[in-house]
């Protein structure tokens, strides 16, 4: 074991307040390692882009120390938003040591990242994670030999079981500055020396080694360029000229850097690897290929959707909602609360506010707890299982061709499917998409036509009870809207589509504890957002009703609601509720139950699904794309919802179904 003592600028040992940064490729288990080292939980998934921002928490293994979880970085110089966020952490967070979390199955690629991190000169420890999966594939790694070759501590880990975590913490606390160097070809090597020399002369306190800054600058890392432009404004012009001279008529330096590291990684990895046998005989690999098969992928997809429908639509929205809403709340709790409040409330308006038609308890809390909670619980459970199984990454390949028609690639399936859980959460995840154009198109389509889990569950509960054909009709309309709006958006928003290159994580049977923990975390996030908004929405409805405005709005909206949409006039109240949250509005329609015909239920659910996105989503869209774009989306979405709802009514009438 190597042991180093960090010395600060004054020569004193650094002990307290140290920052450890977890760095590594996407999908290697950084967030699980983060959880193990800190006890803090961040959303953990086995597809890239889960960690879209740097998370931080106190280290369990060292008093006063902090651990940062950086977004997945496939390589440096940084290119994607995730890589740029990771580079910003290295530049601005002053990490005392780096913990590289690497995929043991892909040693060569992992070492290429190690070599990039080595150049920062920061103390480093390498955690070879998912070693169990490497074992299963016959990949045997001699960690001691690798450690000797790299000059750093190398630890075998399985973060999901906790194996190796204590050793990682111990080695991180005593990590050394690595000494291994990538041999770059001439004239690049000479240029690196020149730039390094200039930076050394002008930057007495760099965030990390001058050599690392020089290489990243030559590779055109935008974060390093921005940092240098602030700290060395006078020298930037000369540095840029040197780089341009070197690239004139030849290859881009970033390519030479990437290739040199890849070659060096291959040479360093080879002696430490043994016992490799072909991996294509494994059961999970065979199943993974069936999931992508041109023929078998479709019945498998249908099976996955069918099981999701049974669990969320039939069990969650049917059985559980029946037990909670009808039996527990309708039969026991609400009569008791109503009796108590009416007996003790000093004023009739107070009783009406709490237990009336738009009562905080009888509507707000009942909707949130008895209707939404069982639906989102079952949805998040199913979603977490599929997410951890590795299925979603394959879904992006299956969906790629379809997404190509709307200017996106299959990667967009991930935020879209996550949007079925919560569109607000998913809007943030669109950062995994490569360009601003793709993010804008995906965000718009989600805001327009992707229902969140509560809404989805309500729709499944309502239309599923009427008949599968009505449910499929609703899905068909939404798919058509997404296809049509996406087709137009792809042609109206300038820019080019980026082809898909993506890693397929192995199909795994998810660990039950992880799925439950993840479901719990999401439910906590969701309910913290939903309950205050449901209560605020109920209060708004009660206030509008109390001052006589609600009947006025219903009367004004009547021509649109009863005429164009062909719904009962009471449905206008649900649309008013939909302004606050679409699922709140959908729940309002659900509560109308038997007073709607099958055709009216479909028209109502289509319209409310396409209706304005919830307030939290609008705020998130504003944060990600600016207030103007958020308002423009709202201005497009509302009329589209009403238009499509009416067109569905006309189509049903033409088919003799309305």
């Amino acid at each position, binding site marked *: 074991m190597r042991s180093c003592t960090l010395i600060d600028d004054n020569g004193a040992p650094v002990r307290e307040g140290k920052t450890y940064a977890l760095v590594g490729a996407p999908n290697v288990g950084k967030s699980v390692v983060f959880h193990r080292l800190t006890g803090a939980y961040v959303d953990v998934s086995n597809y890239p882009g889960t960690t879209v921002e740097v998370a931080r928490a106190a280290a369990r293994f060292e008093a006063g120390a902090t651990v940062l979880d950086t977004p997945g970085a*496939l*390589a440096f110089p940084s*290119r994607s938003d995730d890589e740029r966020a990771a580079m910003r952490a290295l530049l601005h967070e002053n990490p005392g040591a780096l913990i590289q979390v690497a*995929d043991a*199955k*892909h*040693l*060569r*690629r992992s070492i*290429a990242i190690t070599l990039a991190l080595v150049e920062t000169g920061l103390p480093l420890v390498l955690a070879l994670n998912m070693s169990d999966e*490497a074992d299963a*594939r016959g*990949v045997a790694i001699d960690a001691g030999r690798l450690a000797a070759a790299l000059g750093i501590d190398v630890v075998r880990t399985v973060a999901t079981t906790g194996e190796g975590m204590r050793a990682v913490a111990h080695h991180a606390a005593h990590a050394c500055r690595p000494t291994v160097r990538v041999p770059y070809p001439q004239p690049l090597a000479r240029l690196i020396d020149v730039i390094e020399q200039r930076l050394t002369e002008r930057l007495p306190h760099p965030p990390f080694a001058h050599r690392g800054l020089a290489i990243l600058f030559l590779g055109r890392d935008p974060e390093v360029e921005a940092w240098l432009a602030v700290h060395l404004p006078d020298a930037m012009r000369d540095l840029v000229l040197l780089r341009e001279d070197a690239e004139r008529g030849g290859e*881009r330096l*970033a*390519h030479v850097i*990437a*290739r040199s590291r*890849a*070659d060096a990684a*291959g040479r360093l990895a080879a002696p430490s690897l043994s016992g*490799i046998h*072909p*991996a*294509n005989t494994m059961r999970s*690999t065979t199943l*993974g*290929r069936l999931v*992508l*098969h*041109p023929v078998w*992928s479709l019945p498998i997809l249908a099976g996955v959707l069918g099981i999701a429908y049974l669990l969320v639509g039939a069990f969650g929205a049917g059985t559980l909602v029946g037990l909670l809403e009808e039996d527990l709340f309708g039969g026991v709790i609400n009569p008791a609360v109503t009796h108590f409040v009416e007996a003790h409330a000093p004023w009739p308006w107070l009783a009406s506010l709490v237990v009336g038609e738009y009562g905080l308890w009888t509507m707000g809390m009942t909707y949130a707890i008895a209707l939404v909670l069982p639906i989102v619980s079952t949805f998040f459970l199913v979603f977490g299982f599929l997410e951890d199984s590795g299925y979603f990454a394959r879904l*992006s*390949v*299956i969906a*790629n*061709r379809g997404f190509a028609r709307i200017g996106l*690639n299959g990667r967009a399936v991930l935020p879209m499917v996550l949007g079925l859980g919560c569109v607000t959460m998913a809007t943030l995840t669109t950062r995994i998409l490569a360009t601003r154009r793709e993010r804008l198109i995906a965000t718009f389509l989600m805001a327009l036509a992707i229902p969140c889990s509560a809404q989805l569950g309500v729709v499944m509960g309502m239309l599923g009870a009427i008949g599968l054909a009505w449910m499929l009709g609703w899905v068909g309309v939404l798919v058509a809207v997404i296809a049509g709006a996406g087709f137009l958006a792809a042609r109206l928003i300038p820019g080019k589509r980026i*082809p*898909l*290159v*993506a*890693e*397929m994580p*192995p199909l795994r049977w998810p660990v039950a504890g992880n799925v439950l923990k993840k479901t719990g975390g999401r439910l906590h996030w969701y309910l913290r957002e939903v309950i205050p908004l449901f209560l605020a929405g109920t209060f708004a409805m009660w206030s509008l009703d109390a001052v006589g405005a609600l009947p006025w709005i219903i009367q004004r909206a009547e021509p649109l609601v009863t005429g164009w949409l062909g719904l009962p006039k009471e449905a206008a109240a649900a649309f008013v509720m939909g302004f606050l949250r679409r699922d709140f509005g959908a729940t309002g329609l659900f509560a109308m139950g038997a007073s709607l015909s099958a055709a009216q239920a479909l028209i109502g659910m289509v319209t409310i699904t396409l209706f304005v996105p919830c307030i939290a989503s609008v705020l998130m869209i504003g944060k990600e794309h600016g207030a103007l774009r958020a308002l423009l989306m709202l201005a497009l979405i509302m009329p589209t919802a009403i238009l499509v709802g009416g067109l569905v009514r006309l189509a049903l009438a033409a088919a003799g179904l309305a």
Partner: protein
Amino acid sequence: MIALDRVPAGTTARLAEPEPSLASSFRELLAAYGLVPGHLVTVVAQEPMTVVLCDHVELAIERDVAAKLRVDAWSTLRGARPVSA
């Protein structure tokens, strides 16, 4: 020398220099994934996309990109001798 998207599934192939028209961003991305000239990959599928096994990790590559990656030698997993193009 043939394009990667023309290599049949079940074949191990050696990567050559990609076509010059392959965008710089993809060269860097593929190098980060370990797809560099001289490295061996096994083609797992060509539908719905080109899927290759690279050091025990499967990578899906859209046809537009796979068509610009070239291989200079390949052999089937069933023991046929490597064939130079």
